[in-house]
């Protein structure tokens, strides 16, 4: 093998493995035939052209490759975990609402409006219903319920000029992930199968623990400090992450879940310094999820290329 051939072969790694298997030798022949007699290095323009061609083929084949790869199972997992997270959000609101009922009743008898005190109850209820429909495994009904909850949430947020930081965007994004996963993936039954009963029960328990620590009034009643509550929450999140990260499908699902969940953890503030309500809405609903979404996608690409593919390839190819 000449040095030029070796170098061209290295640049052909831009192409998907499937394409390389079918065309690598043929393309090398063409590249070498087109090369000058004394050429020892690939021309820059040829290298750029190979990169462009390889990436073009990868992008064109991406949907099929994703469907064949671990993404099917990752989508199945998301169809179970995303609605569980949605349900946890509703449970947290319900716990807080019920515990604050005595105070609210007192305030209501002194002229406060029930509507103002519980204005986000309808949207939380709608997300809870969408989550239950999703957990029953009905994709189209889920999509309809998610759409209804989405419209209701945006209307409630806009009517109250409430953009409570990234937390407001989380149910919307989780709802979209839930509907998308159930419509495009193999369904919730496969998700439960991939997850396995022990891990499913474990995650439900961890979510219950997280809701418990996240509910301010529960913490106050039990004398748990905010810091200790946060530590409990982080512990539950860590254990759930470690469980999911054990399989390739779980790792992919985790990165997708980072889009709605990462903003809550990294952007816990409310952009009150922005005066324009529309700009405030766009920051929480669009800009922050978009930025964390892009970061998550970059992490996903790195995970796929640097960890999952090499590990699976090594397992497929026996040593020696």
């Amino acid at each position, binding site marked *: 093998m000449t040095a030029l051939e070796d170098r061209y072969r290295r640049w052909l790694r831009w192409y998907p493995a499937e394409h390389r298997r079918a*065309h690598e030798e*043929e393309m*090398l*022949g*063409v590249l*070498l035939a087109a090369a000058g007699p004394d050429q020892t290095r690939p021309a820059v323009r040829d290298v750029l052209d*190979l*990169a462009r*061609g390889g990436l073009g083929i990868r992008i064109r084949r991406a949907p099929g490759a994703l469907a064949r790869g671990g993404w099917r199972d990752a989508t199945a997992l998301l169809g179970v975990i995303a609605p569980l997270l949605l349900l946890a959000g509703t449970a947290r609101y319900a716990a807080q609402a019920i515990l604050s009922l005595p105070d609210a009743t007192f305030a209501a008898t002194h002229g406060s409006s029930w509507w103002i005190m519980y204005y986000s109850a309808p949207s939380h209820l709608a997300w809870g219903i969408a989550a239950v429909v999703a957990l029953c495994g009905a994709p189209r009904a889920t999509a309809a319920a998610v759409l209804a909850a989405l419209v209701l949430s945006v209307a409630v947020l806009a009517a109250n000029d409430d953009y409570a930081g990234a937390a407001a965007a989380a149910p919307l994004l989780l709802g979209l992930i839930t509907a998308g996963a159930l419509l495009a993936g193999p369904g919730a039954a496969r998700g439960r199968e991939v997850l396995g009963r022990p891990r499913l029960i474990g995650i439900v328990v961890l979510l219950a623990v997280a809701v418990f620590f996240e509910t301010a009034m529960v913490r106050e009643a039990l004398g748990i400090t905010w810091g200790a509550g946060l530590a409990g929450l982080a512990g539950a999140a860590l254990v759930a992450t470690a469980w999911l990260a054990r399989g390739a499908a779980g790792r992919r699902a985790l990165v997708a879940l980072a889009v709605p969940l990462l903003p809550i953890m990294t952007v816990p503030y409310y952009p009150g310094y922005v005066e324009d309500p529309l700009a405030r809405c766009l920051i929480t609903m669009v800009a922050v999820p978009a930025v964390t979404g892009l970061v998550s996608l970059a992490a996903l690409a790195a995970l796929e290329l640097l960890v999952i593919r090499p590990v699976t390839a090594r397992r497929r190819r026996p040593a020696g």
Partner: protein
Amino acid sequence: MQEPTFLILTALAARPQHGYGIMCDAEQISDGRVRLRAGTLYAALDRLQADGLVDADREEVVDGRLRRYYRLTDDGAAALATEVERLRRRAEAAAARLGPARLRGAQATVPAV
């Protein structure tokens, strides 16, 4: 239709050819103006095969190297014929608007093929 696609389909219109053959032929058809590089050529062949316009014909080994020949499918020939008709109508429209005198003037400045 993009120019590389048009040149590849034209190169395959008369007979099946291998990758390097298509490359040289495309250069000749375009009067040396377009030199398809391997990346562009194989990306286009991948797309054309997926669209059913081009298909693999046969393989041979020359000097220890694999050569795969590609041929135009019936759909590919139909797509090329449609494009030829479209280009012909455009060229005729342009020629008619230029008029014979100005058209001859342009021909005098362009070297003959």
